[in-house]
């Protein structure tokens, strides 16, 4: 792509990633969550990769495949960690540990340090969705480079 597109993509890439992370980490307080924040982060990766039209080392498919598998394992692991009561039992909620603060009943602004395992699951799903879309985009870019141009 042209120099203008590359400059604007470089300029906007960190802001898109930070906005996606904001949606993910506030998933248990505000509208949004893992899927939506992961899609926003993946659009940032796609913008960067398409503007460069190369497979960047930091955005390679191998790393994203590993992240995808590990985040699915992390999601299933947090579900299985509550097996002392039941599958998907929220064992961290109201426990006083990380993300374990008690919330007040009714409509309130909310505290970030609540939610139990829900923030961890949001992060896992976000990593999976972001790496999935990044894999698709980098596959298509590779095919377009090797099959269409040559």
């Amino acid at each position, binding site marked *: 792509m042209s120099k203008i597109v590359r400059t604007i993509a470089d300029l906007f890439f960190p802001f898109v990633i930070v906005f996606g992370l904001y949606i993910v980490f506030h998933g248990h307080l505000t509208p949004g*969550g893992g899927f939506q924040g992961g899609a926003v982060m993946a659009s940032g990766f796609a913008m960067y990769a398409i503007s460069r039209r190369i497979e960047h080392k930091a955005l390679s498919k191998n790393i994203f495949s590993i992240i995808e598998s590990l985040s*699915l394992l992390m999601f299933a692991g947090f579900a299985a960690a509550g097996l002392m009561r039941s599958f*998907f039992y*929220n064992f961290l909620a109201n426990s006083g540990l990380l993300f374990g603060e008690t919330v007040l009943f009714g409509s309130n602004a909310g505290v970030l340090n609540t939610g139990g395992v*829900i923030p961890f*699951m949001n992060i896992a799903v976000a990593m999976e969705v972001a790496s999935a879309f990044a894999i698709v985009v980098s596959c298509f870019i590779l095919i377009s480079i090797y099959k269409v141009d040559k």
Partner: protein
Amino acid sequence: MKLRYFLPCLLIFAFLFLSAHNIRDFGSPTHSEMDTYFLRNAQEQTGANNVVSAVLFDYRGLDTLGEATVLFTAISGVLIISKTILEDDNVDVKNC
């Protein structure tokens, strides 16, 4: 437009219009026990202010696990097909 195409279109339009006209008011479903339970207990049981998130990742977490697995399977298919396409052309696919 011929009549035999016009008549089914009119029937479908009448059905959609009548069902939209006779729809229930927003926020008053016929069976509201589950909604009431979620709204009363979600904050206390899961510690999340966002009740949609609480349902998605806690009460109905198995559904989200299935969705994540579907996404994983789809990406595996994309990787396999792209690798096959690139190998047909004798491309060096170290990175696939």
